[in-house]
């Protein structure tokens, strides 16, 4: 597997040769992945490819049949789940949800709420938030423990196009402004292309991985996602080529969206 991170970066998560078998079917088959500091990895793959199972193992929520996951000592991970269903029977404000089971000071909460643009929602009941608002609140919660790594599982899946653009812009802003690595499952590759440094394509095993442009040319990628997706990916970086010196030209999506 290609590892694009500079060798000096510190490794946060090492997944070696993970195999997971459920009901005699291999969900993950010899999957290895390293996540190092400042990585921005987008994990893609068709439905049922084992993406969520893979994330659960990276988070050490489940243990594999074989292989291992190692975290750097004192690694802090912020996790944004695919979706949460808030029972309307539970009366709880956003503010309270964010401070549940942790020791977040008011000032820190306010500062985080500013970043994720949820200041006006802090007193709102959690169950009455819109999809986009709820995702921003979950993202805020994931940032409360000052994570070294943010793991997001299709965070924009239930949002409309506008909401998706805004959410991904926010993720990019967070990546730019914090010393954080990101691993995100997303199908909206064209929307996260400018930040994504590495694409990993999973279909029970890792089909291909590398820089977005190179992955788009990979025959296995094309056979799974089709030519359209490959073209979309291959075209996009040309118009935004060499976008790693982010002065200001980075926020096209946000400006278009607002």
């Amino acid at each position, binding site marked *: 597997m290609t590892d694009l991170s500079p060798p000096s970066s510190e490794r946060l998560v090492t997944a070696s040769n993970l195999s997971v078998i459920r009901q005699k079917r291999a969900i993950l088959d010899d999957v290895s992945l390293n996540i190092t500091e400042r990585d921005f990895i987008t994990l893609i793959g068709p439905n049922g490819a084992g993406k969520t199972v893979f994330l659960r193992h990276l988070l050490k929520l489940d243990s594999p049949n074989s292989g291992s996951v190692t975290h750097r000592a004192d690694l802090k991970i912020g996790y944004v789940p695919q979706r949460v269903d808030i029972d309307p*029977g539970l*009366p709880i404000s956003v503010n309270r949800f964010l401070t549940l089971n942790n020791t977040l000071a008011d000032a820190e909460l306010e500062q985080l709420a500013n970043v994720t643009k949820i200041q006006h929602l802090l007193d709102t009941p959690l169950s009455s938030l819109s999809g986009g608002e709820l995702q921003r609140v979950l993202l805020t919660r994931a940032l409360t423990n000052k994570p070294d790594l943010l793991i997001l599982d299709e965070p924009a899946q239930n949002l409309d196009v506008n909401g998706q653009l805004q959410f991904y812009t926010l993720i990019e802003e967070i990546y730019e402004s914090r010393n954080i690595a990101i691993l995100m499952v997303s199908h909206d590759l064209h929307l996260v292309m400018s930040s994504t440094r590495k694409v990993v394509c999973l279909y029970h095993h890792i089909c291909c991985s590398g820089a977005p442009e190179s992955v788009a040319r990979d025959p296995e990628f094309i056979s799974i996602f089709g030519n359209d997706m490959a073209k979309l990916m291959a075209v996009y970086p040309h118009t935004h080529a060499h976008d790693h010196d982010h002065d200001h030209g980075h926020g096209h999506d946000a400006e278009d969206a607002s």
Partner: protein
Amino acid sequence: MNTHIILTALALALVAGPLGCFVVWRRMAYFGDGLAHSALLGVAVGLVIGISHQIGMMVIAVVFALLLIWLRSKRVLATDTLLGILAHAALSLGVVAMALLGAGEVELHDYLLGSLDQLTPELAAWVIGGAGLSLGLLLRLWPGLILMTTSEELAHAEGVSIMRYEFALMVLMGVVVAAAIQMVGILLITSLLIIPASTARLLARTPEQMAVGGSLIASLAMLIGLPSAQSFDLATGPMIVCVSVALFIIVLVGRLVLRSTAP
């Protein structure tokens, strides 16, 4: 009315508030019913091996919870189906066993609908102790349980052991149900948990308000229901539940009226 009865009622009401919240939030009503149904088997087991009814009920409740967790992990049948099988199997076994052990109709009736006849001061002390311990444990686990209620996945990722918390909640239910059955009865015990909590939901803005409100409303239902049952010589459970439902309706209607008249 004797002091030990009032104290028992208040202790049960106190723990019913917060525990009832979780029954509402985590949709455990059917589980509570299942536990209660299995309690009769616990009484029978207690009679056979010569331990107290309460201990027998708690043991069977824990076995019930473990069996449910184990069967659920097999992912073959839905949880409510499993609960239906377990609960009714336990209830039927209990009724048959009680009959074989020579229990009369009156005794069965008392277990099903609640009665104060068997509530000696000694038993009251046990019930109050059990309720107090449960309340203490519930308060200790409170933040983690609330987080788990918003999202199990999130709580798990943040290091809350879901298995342990869920099991703790199930055992707590078992203890409280076993403690309260004498007074409220097997058939109605779940309503002591969910009706006051649901009433409090109509008024609460935080989880804590809902829990405390549930305790207060349950206390009120006990303090009105028990003396009325006694003075009319009725089963205690149905009377307590009638009062709870009346309180629920009053709050519900009051809220609707206030809302419609608000500017």
